[in-house]
């Protein structure tokens, strides 16, 4: 099977997945950074794709957003979103997906249960730690928050993001059973 069509099909699929999670509305926090389900899409891309594909999937979504398509939660889009307080997190998404996939590759995925546990840790490493690190830097630079405040603020999202990592593990568990030839950590090779 040819890689180019595989690549195109999966990268656009996961960009769409993140977009779909954007239809489930965000919860606005006073910080100017919403709680959104889209990070679940970022984690899933990382857990199910190869690092390059995962990065590209999120980047494709962000490119479409930049072009003005209203694909961020709450129906936001356009270049303006990259100058909002949450911009740091946004930039962190593709990196987070990439790191998640890298960690996934390094962890065992042979049995469905193993794969699920690995997915949880990979999602925490990439989808949580990396994204939040970028987010905190963004808050400091754009919202002019002091580091301590920014760190405290980002803690608000941790419980939700941990739940998302658990959901990611559940989905990976299902995929490992339903599509045994989906190479977890190795991406969509057959």
């Amino acid at each position: 099977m040819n890689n180019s069509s595989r690549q195109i099909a999966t990268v656009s699929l996961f960009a769409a997945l993140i977009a779909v999670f954007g239809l489930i509305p965000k919860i606005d926090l006073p910080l100017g950074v919403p709680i959104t389900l889209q990070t679940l899409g970022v984690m899933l891309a990382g857990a199910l794709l190869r690092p390059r594909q995962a990065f590209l999937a999120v980047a494709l979504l962000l490119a479409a957003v930049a072009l003005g398509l209203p694909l961020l939660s709450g129906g936001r889009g356009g270049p303006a979103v990259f100058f909002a307080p949450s911009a740091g997190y946004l930039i962190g998404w593709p990196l987070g997906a990439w790191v998640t996939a890298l960690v996934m590759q390094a962890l065992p995925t042979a049995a469905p249960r193993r794969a699920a546990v690995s997915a949880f840790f990979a999602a925490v490493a990439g989808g949580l730690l990396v994204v939040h690190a970028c987010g905190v830097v963004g808050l400091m630079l754009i919202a002019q928050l002091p580091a301590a405040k920014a760190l405290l603020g980002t803690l608000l999202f941790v419980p939700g993001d941990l739940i998302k990592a658990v959901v990611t593990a559940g989905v990976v568990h299902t995929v490992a059973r339903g599509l045994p030839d989906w190479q977890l950590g190795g991406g969509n090779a057959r």
Partner: protein
Amino acid sequence: MLSLYADTPSWLHRVPAGLKLAALAGGGLALALTTDALALAVAAVAALGLLASLGPAGRGARRPMTVTLVVAALLVGLHALLGTVPLGLVAALRLVCTTALGLALTLTTRPADLVEVIERLLQPLRHLGLDPSRFALHLALMLRYTEHFFARWQQLDEAHRLRTGRPGGLRLLAPLTLQMLLAARRVADTLHVRLGR
């Protein structure tokens, strides 16, 4: 793949895709910048009116729109608990507007037309070494998958309700992801065989 595109003709089908996209992008920006609940309420009524004006072609919007309205109501309720009703109202109205506008676009525009517009917009990027047609294919597929997600979710939910008497709810998230991965494989197969990509 499944789609929401309605083949019942409506007046909006005849409006060029570029115009609709520009309107959506402009509208989206305006909505994002507005924090005035009254203005947003007027916009929401207008957007719902737009959907209604599609007549039978708007039928496919009923279910996603109902879901959105319920969610919007929940959102306001949540903010009421936090004591931030105005913030919740703004978010809810924005959600209703953008969903309605987005649905109006997908129901009345063939993705091919939409992607053609974007491909034309991106032509200048050719000088930077980016291949607009490849990017356009990605975008086209992404938009198709978004619809497919919805239609597929409806199908799964239909099967679940029929077989158990209950809606599937969140239990369908993992099966749906699996179905979507399968769909991606099939699309890849089709692209491979039919386009030689």
